[in-house]
């Protein structure tokens, strides 16, 4: 990094007609760009950037600006980015979208800051620090913005977030001299423009975040820019799907845009999300923590639940994003997409007949059931490493996108706790907002007891999942594979919450609680507890009590589950259900 810096510096020196001081790192950028421009293939005058006094025609100037916009920070910065194992903003867009489908907007936008020498042309870049436009993923329309963290900020080791990124929305400090993908008013305006258009057209927005944060030189203008984006994130929420892919640092106020979008994905080892960086943490709470521990992909996909999935590198992340995009409808006006399917909808899945163990305490893997039932065993799991006692994700049934929610008996017996409730609730609400049918596999022994949960507010968090299922009007199909105990039975898309089709497998047990606990209450003091338990099991540990009351529509052979769900979805495609009018509902946040 240091080498690049000095090369850039010396090349600046060659064109020493410039008068700016080297205090500002922005000059490096200029230097590199100028160096590139001065290469033999493009014999341009060294001062080509000072358009105002240029003798060039408008047409030539357009060409030059386009060229400058395409090259971004210059080849040296591109190389530096590559060296860090990252791609440039344009390369990312190229990989994300279908070949040659990208239509760029606002390539000529420049920032309008006039303080700290920013007004100089040398500090202006066509396109500013973000690439925006629209394109196609597998032929389907999408709007994208991709931030340009091209800066080799200071002489820091590769792949690390510049220390200067550490600041909060309200407390900007340290000398921020380079754009570094930083958010200027113009940058924000560009993003808002594509978001506005995405809303009017009805197409998803994908943000590829790699930004140094607010542009300090712009002060409140930059803050206003953030707020403009936040507002649009919120207005677009539930109208068009919004996806954030964090591909570099994202700190301070900037984190709230990804947080407001529907899905946040991260790239391992190169992306960070935090409100304040390790230095501030150290000075405020005296905790020693690395960036990776504080806000790396692992932290956010396993501990905090901020990010929904992490990928190995830029290429893998973008290719997976393409795959993921395929599951989503373009907007809330569109039905769940139906893709051509090679998997027979009436396929019997024999292996399911034996999957639930005879002992009701023995675990099995809910993912085995999901993989066996969905099209081509293709399941895009959301938050696979967070609150693993519930499994959520997208799959297809006979080609149609469905959202799948399942209790995971393999982890904590599949109980509902704070994290799994919140994870499930958010997923259910996304599906409901975008017309994606929800299939729920139930094997839940109840809510997790204990002070940690009660103090943590399991009551209001558990209520979220209940709320989400109750308000959802998309087709809801429920399969009780084994336990459906207590309040958790109600919560998990039960008939009482307007479940459209509720099935039970022969192994299902719908009851208020497990036999042991129930017997201790019902037959308190009775001598022969074992006999009482057997009686209880006989009465309740089977699907009949629910079936005789019509709380499950049918008891089905597990092997026929796929066939039944596919045919139900066909019928439910025309389901119409409307909740009472309200300004908006008041989910217990």
């Amino acid at each position, binding site marked *: 990094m240091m080498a690049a810096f000095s090369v850039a510096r010396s090349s600046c020196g060659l064109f020493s007609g410039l008068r700016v001081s080297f205090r500002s790192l922005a000059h490096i950028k200029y230097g590199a760009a100028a160096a590139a421009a001065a290469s033999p293939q493009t014999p341009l005058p060294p001062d080509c950037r000072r358009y105002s006094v240029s003798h060039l025609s408008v047409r030539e100037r357009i060409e030059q600006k386009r060229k400058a916009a395409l090259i971004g920070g210059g080849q040296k910065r591109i190389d530096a980015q*590559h060296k860090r*194992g*990252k*791609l440039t903003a344009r390369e990312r867009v*190229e*990989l994300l979208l*279908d*070949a040659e*489908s990208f239509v760029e907007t606002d390539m000529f936008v420049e920032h309008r800051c006039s303080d700290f020498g920013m007004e100089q042309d040398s500090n202006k870049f066509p396109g500013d620090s973000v690439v925006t436009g629209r394109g*196609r993923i*597998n*032929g*389907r*329309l999408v709007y994208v913005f991709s931030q340009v963290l091209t800066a080799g900020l200071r002489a820091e080791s590769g792949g690390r977030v510049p220390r200067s990124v550490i600041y909060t929305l309200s407390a900007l400090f340290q000398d921020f001299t380079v754009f570094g993908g930083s958010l200027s008013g113009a940058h924000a305006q560009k993003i808002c423009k594509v978001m506005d258009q995405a809303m009017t*057209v*009805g*197409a998803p927005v994908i943000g590829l975040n790699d930004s140094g944060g607010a542009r300090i030189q712009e002060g409140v203008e930059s803050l206003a820019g953030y707020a403009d984006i936040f507002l649009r994130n919120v207005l677009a929420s539930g109208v068009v799907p919004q996806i954030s892919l964090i591909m570099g640092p994202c700190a301070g106020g900037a984190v709230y845009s990804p947080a407001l979008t529907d899905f946040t994905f991260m790239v391992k080892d190169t992306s960070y999300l935090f409100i304040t960086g390790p230095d501030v943490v150290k000075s405020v709470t005296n905790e020693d923590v690395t960036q990776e521990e504080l806000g790396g992909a692992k932290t956010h996909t396993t501990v905090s639940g901020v990010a929904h999935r992490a990928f*190995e*590198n*830029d*290429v*893998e992340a973008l*290719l*997976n994003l*393409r*795959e*993921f995009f*395929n599951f989503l409808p*373009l*907007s809330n*006006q*569109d*039905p769940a*997409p*139906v*893709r*051509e399917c*090679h*998997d*027979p909808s009436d396929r019997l899945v*024999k*292996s*399911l*007949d*034996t*999957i639930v163990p*005879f002992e009701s305490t023995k675990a099995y*893997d809910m993912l*085995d059931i999901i*993989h066996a039932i969905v*099209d*081509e065993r293709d399941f895009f799991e959301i938050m696979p490493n967070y609150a693993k006692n519930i499994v959520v994700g997208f799959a297809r049934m006979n*080609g149609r996108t469905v959202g799948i929610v399942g209790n995971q008996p393999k982890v904590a017996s599949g109980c509902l706790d704070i994290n799994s409730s919140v994870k499930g609730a958010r997923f259910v609400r996304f599906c409901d907002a975008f017309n994606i049918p929800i299939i729920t596999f139930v094997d839940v022994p109840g809510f997790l007891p204990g002070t940690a949960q009660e103090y943590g507010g399991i009551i209001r968090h558990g209520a979220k999942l209940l709320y989400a299922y109750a308000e959802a009007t998309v087709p809801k199909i429920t399969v009780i594979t084994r336990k459906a105990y207590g309040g958790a039975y109600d919560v998990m898309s039960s008939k009482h919450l307007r479940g459209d089709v509720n099935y039970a497998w*022969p*192994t299902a047990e719908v009851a208020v609680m497990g036999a042991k606990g129930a017997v201790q209450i019902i037959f308190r003091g009775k001598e022969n507890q074992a006999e009482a338990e*057997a009686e209880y*099991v*006989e009465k309740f540990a*089977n699907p009949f009590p629910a079936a005789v009351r019509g709380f499950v529509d049918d008891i089905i*052979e597990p092997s026929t589950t796929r066939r039944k769900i596919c045919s139900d979805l066909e019928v439910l495609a025309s389901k119409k259900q409307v909740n009472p009018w309200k300004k908006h509902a008041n989910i217990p946040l």
Partner: protein
Amino acid sequence: MAVYRQAVLLDRLLFAVKYAPCQSRGCAVDPRAQYSTAASLNEKTFDKILIANRGEIACRVMKTCKKMGIQTVAVHSDVDSSAVHVKMADEAVCVGPAPTNKSYLNMEAILEAIRHTGAQAVHPGYGFLSENKEFAKRLVADGVTFIGPDTHAIQAMGDKIESKLIAKAAKVNTIPGFDGVVKTAEEAVKIAQQIGYPVMIKASAGGGGKGMRIAWNDEETREGFRFSSQEAASSFGDDRLLIEKYIDNPRHIEIQVLADKHGNALWLNERECSIQRRNQKVVEEAPSTFLDPDTRRAMGEQAVQLAKAVKYSSAGTVEFLVDSKKNFYFLEMNTRLQVEHPITECITGLDLVEQMIRVAKGYRLQHEQKDIPINGWAIESRVYAEDPYKSFGLPSIGRLSQYQEPLNLSNVRVDSGIEEGSDISIYYDPMISKLVTFGSTRAEALARMEDALDSYVIRGVTHNIPLLREIITHPRFISGDISTNFLPEVYPDGFKGHQLDVESRRELLAAAVALYITSQLRSQKILGDLRVSSAPMESSCWELCVELGEGQHHVHVIKSGNVYTVEADGGKVEVCGQWNLASTLLPITVNGADRMLQCLSREASGTLVLQYMGTLFKLQILSKRAAELNSYMPEKVSEDTSSILRSPMPGTVVAVSVKPGDTVAEGQEICVIEAMKMQNSLTAAKPAKVKSVHCKAGETVGEGDLLVELE
């Protein structure tokens, strides 16, 4: 609990209905060559038979019972309560928890099950109680027929030394040798000369091949005597030496015999079982390429002599070692139905289980020696749930998430006791099935075996099909040049999977890119009326970059209909197929030749895992541009395996020999893992200090679990 029992009953009832067609399918493939499906109905045998076994052999026996109209009783451990053999049986009794010594070896419980169900006879299968004379004795005492030989035959043949003496007396060739105290080197030379070189010298007390020395001349005999007698005295405190004829490059060939209780005995030809690993058979065939009719008759007649000498009844197997000059020597006799009996059934048309049941009831043999044919050729591959890349097979466990036997092919017989969804657990033998193919010639049977292995879908556990496929296509195997040392000789550095040549690599690349493009194109096919129109990319020509192993291949593809013309590595291949993205099997035609591939996974990142020629290959397919950008992606550092010890297989920790802070030398034992009756010692890869221990004796561990960390 009552409800459960109801459910079980209901399940069983349902299964009986479901399984019926399966049954007939299994036998109807080609009844002529498998074994006779028509039982002699006028013979009354038993009303009810209990099968004291599990897995494929229990199912195999039940098939014949059903054919003969005999009711069947299964016994099972608690983890096997929904196993195939349980569902197949008319009645089932749980005889204990999972460990075999508490269930399938639990004589009390099994005898109780017999009393409870009123079974008149017991078929023991192989393994477990099949050669347990105590069990046979107690059955007789209870008035229950043991479907197998008499107790004294079991006993006589069960003792290695006694069986050799009986064999010698019955004029069966035995390995010439001397076992006793040898005083001087000259005495040893004299014995060796009598036996004839080469000879093997070792301490009698040393088990297996331990301390074994081979001498080809007098001088080497003297040297061998010196070492072995020293070792015998120092290591074992037992002076006795064993000097025995050394069989160079032996083959393991066995003769199936069948005898009744009236002194009649037949030999049903031989089985070649030389392909072994760790003394366990992997591939068997009948007949053997090595035997001429004279040798075969000689072996058969000797086998029958031995059977008669011990008044053998029922089916049994006489094992021989055969040297390169077709000298054969008696090894041992197995007094039970062998695992590999199906190949004998295939070439003789006899149903051995049926014959065993008849004989047990006291009927005479239906056939004479001249009626026993060799019809065609049969080959059996033992399909195991094990990783062939680790010393030719270390057990693997898991749930068979997908499982499909190649029964759609003709001349294929699959004996299995599992189905899709079954668990392969650590408690029992990891055999998935016995895959048997036959044909009028060996070449035909081998070709069919290739097809069958390629079409066999097993997912959820690691299996040995890669190894089986390599064995049966190896030139040495095809030419019949095999011995019990085949595997270590052919793969001195361990098995490495199918090695691609330029041609086959191109085929694989072509199939992979065609599948990749199919899935890419399918991604654009969104059905229904779209509010926002879609703009799919129309293309019929692609430039792709495929990573396969260490190599990168630039591939040019042109598509027309279902046909892809693929240019790679300076050659052109045309592949066509149905390209069904949901199917596990991928039948394709490559330059006019039929190939069966399997697709195991297809990921968004372009990673594709294909099974080709039996072996799994991982490929990453990217567009040219994506590959270019991918080259900037950093290599993720993999963990340093020398300082981390992970369990190579699922099993139980038997012993942990170190504790944190200990210093270990390279090769020093760190812990012992046991799985499926096999103990594995795990050793340090370098001298180091133990940082932490993550397991303790008695614990169950999964494959890849962290056991010990070194500093």
